[in-house]
Each structure stands twice: as C-alpha cells, then as structure tokens.
C-alpha cells in the first residue's frame, strides 16, 4: 500500500511545486510590467477596510470617511455622466454640479452601512487587464471568514499620473449601472427632468442624514 502511495505522493508534491513555480514565473513579468492599476485598487481596498472598519467610530464619521474615499477613488464626473445616461444632456451645468454633490453623499450612505457590518473580510485583488480604450479592469475577491469568496471587479482609467475608478462590480453587479437604471425611471416619472431626480436624491439624503445624526 505504502509502496504505491509514496511515489504517488512524491509526484503530487512535485506537481504542486512545479505548479507554484509556474504560477510565480507567469505572475512576475505581468506584475513587473503592470500598469499599476492593480496596486491602485488594492490600496483602495486596504484603505477602505482600515478607515471604515476602525473600532469605535460613529456612523457619521464612517460616512464622512466614505465620502473622502469616494472622491479620492472615483472619477466623479465620468460616473455622474454615466448614471444620468441620455438625460445628462438635459442637465444644466448647475444641475450637474448639484447632482454630483448629492450623488456622492447618497453613495457614501449606501455603502458605509456595508462596512459597519464588517466581520473580518479581506480584499485581495488578483489581476488586471488592459482594455482598448485606455481603461483597465482589475479583478479580485473579497475573502469572507466563512462562506465562499465574493468576486469583485473595478474598472479604472488614468487621470494625469494617477488612476481613477469608473465602475465597481460585485458578483457581476455594477453599482453605477444599477443606479443608472433607477435614475432613468425616477426622471421619467418626474416629468423627464433632471431636477426631478435631484429632488428625489435630496429627499433620500435628508432621510439618510436623519438616520445618521452627526455628533
């Protein structure tokens, strides 16, 4: 029995080592020649976990930190134009500015809650892929202490010498796309005007702020 099992184990071990060496040699050049997009997204993830899950912070501090992280990470105008969809052409410059201000607060409240329930998850970005139009997709997983890993994907593009994110997908669900669909519906229900959406967003933000009183 052992006579058969031992060589088998040895072969398995050899294959495992070979696999690891191959994986490393494949990963190394990619990392060395990488655009830095992967590093950017990994840093965003690490910052989010460090800043938003710190022990003892209040809900309003978490939202404030989330707002800072959002404005540091995302290309706010590109995302705003995407989520407004074809209605963006109906927004005056003042409306677009007001929409961008409210949208950032709205998203911050949406996502701050997720980090409040943090229970030891780790963000692990794994690879990046360059796209034709100067974008990069960065893929990774959120590792949970129990339960399967959750797929995560962030699309970034270069702004000057840095990166800015334009899309975030969790398990294939894009945050901006889901917002875009809802916003189009709200605009249509409110006289096909962007001002209708701004009113609705203002209402939601007021409600969120009431639920999260500042200290």
């Amino acid at each position, binding site marked *: 029995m052992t006579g058969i099992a031992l060589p088998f184990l040895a072969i398995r071990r050899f294959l495992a080592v070979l696999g690891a060496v191959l994986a490393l040699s494949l990963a190394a050049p990619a990392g060395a020649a990488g655009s830095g997009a992967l590093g950017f997204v990994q840093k965003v993830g690490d910052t989010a976990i460090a800043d938003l899950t710190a022990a003892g912070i209040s809900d309003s501090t978490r939202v404030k930190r989330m707002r800072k992280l959002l404005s540091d990470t995302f*290309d706010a105008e*590109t*995302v705003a*134009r*995407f989520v*407004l*969809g*074809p*209605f*963006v052409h*109906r927004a005056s410059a003042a409306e677009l500015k007001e929409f961008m201000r409210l949208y950032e607060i*709205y998203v911050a*409240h*949406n996502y701050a*809650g*997720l980090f409040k*329930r943090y229970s030891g998850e780790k963000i692990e970005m794994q690879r990046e*892929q360059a*796209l*034709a*139009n*100067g*974008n990069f*997709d960065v*893929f990774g997983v959120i590792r949970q202490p129990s339960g*399967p890993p959750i*797929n995560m*994907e962030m*699309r970034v*593009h270069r702004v000057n010498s840095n990166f800015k994110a*334009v*899309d975030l997908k969790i*398990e*294939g*669900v*894009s945050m*901006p*796309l*889901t917002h*875009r*669909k*809802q*916003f*189009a*519906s*709200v*605009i*249509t*229900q409110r006289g*096909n005007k962007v001002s209708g*959406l701004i009113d*609705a*967003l203002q209402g*939601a933000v007021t409600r*969120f702020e009431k639920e999260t009183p500042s200290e």
Partner: protein
Amino acid sequence: MFENRFAFLKMRIATLLLASLGTLAVAGCATPPSDPVARTEFEKENDPLEPLNRAIFGFNRTMDGMFLRPAAIAYREVLPQPVQKGVYNFLGNLRSPVVFANDVLQGDIDRAGNTAGRFAINTTVGILGVWDAAAELFNMQGHSEDFGQTFGVWGVGEGFYFVLPFLGPSNPRDATGLLVEYLVDPFNLWAREQNVEGWILARSLVTGVDFRARNLQTLDELERTSLDYYVAVRSLYRQRRADEIRNGRPTSDQPAPGITVAPEGQKPAGDDRSAEAR
C-alpha cells in the same frame, strides 16, 4: 370517476387562471412615453408589462412583509447557526441532480464531475447532505446551475422581464427553466410517484425561508437605499443572471460594457443595455 371530475376541475381552474392572467396582462401593458429620450430608455428596458409587474411586485412585497420576512427572522433567531447551515447544505445537496444535469447539458464535464462527486460524498459521509463533507474534507466547492442558465449558455436570450407571483423576477427563458426543473427534478418525481406532493411545497417553502434569512440585511438595505426598488431589483436580477450564465467569468474579453471613457472632450454616456443583459 372521482379522479376524472377532479382532473376536469383542475383544468377549469387552470383555464380560468390563464384567462384572468391574459386579461391582466392586456390591462397591465405599459404605455410608451411620448418623450423621445424616455421612450428610447423604455424600449431598451424590455419590460412591456411594467404596470402589471409593479402590481405583482407590490403583492409579493406585501406577502413578504406578512409571512416570509417574519418567518426568516424567526428562523434566524430561533435555530442555532449549525442547524441553519445543515438545512442550507441539505437543500443544496437535494438539488445536486438538477445541477449535474445542467452541468452536462452545458458541456462542462469538469463541473459535472465535481457535482457528482460532491453528491456522492455528501449524501453518504455528509449524512444525507446535512454536512458539506466534500468542501470541508476535499475542498470540493459547490456551485449552482439551473435550466434557465443552460438555455442562456445555449444562446437563448432572456426576453422580456416579468414578475411571477410569489416567485419574483423572471423572464420567459428563466420561467421555462423553472417549469422544466419542477417537472424533472428527481425529488419531485419521487414525491409525485409516492403521492406525497405536499413535500414539494414544503421543500419550496423551506428553500424560500432559508434564502430570505440569508439575505435579510442585503435586501433590507437595498430597499432602504433604493430610489426605485422595483427597478433596482429588475436591474440586479438581470445582471446577476448574466453573471451566473457566464459562471462569474469577466466580460472584458467582450465589447466593453458599462462605462466607456472616450478621448478628452467627448463624454459618452455608454451603452448599458448590452452590459445588463449579457
């Protein structure tokens, strides 16, 4: 004789139900908006029964609020975590033959092997599937498949969106998949054979409560933060299904979805429709 009358009654009820659904569908048809931009968006959404769907969605929410959500809360509060996990594992294992069939129909032999192996291990070592021994002892992680996904892999489009009473978001492709699963699931076949059809309903109810309990916070949070909950759920459903059909593989190797960044000076809005339905 009695059986014949019973069958006749069932047919009558089915006809009546179909007729009333047909009437409702006609009454629930959406009127396309006159605004040209809104109209384009409306056409892209492919939700021609939106008013009816919103009504059914509202009905489902009421039912959820009255029965499912309280049951899910009670389930989560009362049953110890290991028991809940056991129920989840058991239900998953019970679906394995359907997952296996779909793995095979999708030509994914590796995943079919994984599903068959998991079923064999978990049904025996895992005590009828209560313990996920395959994952814990052999790191064989499970996955889910259904006939709707298989049709998707075969190239069948999702078609128009609709909401089913009690069952929630769907479309012709996925609803057909559900029906096929109902008809061919070995557990259901066995229950019908043994004349214990109540077990099929019981299994569906437990599956519903388990799903709701595992998604309590996520769904509550989504509802709380949505500007239009109906549209949020519709969009999430379509994006999730598209992702499931791809088995989580990224879309980057296909025409870029979602946001596209144009050269300076141009600010395209991007075409979202393809991204959602893919």
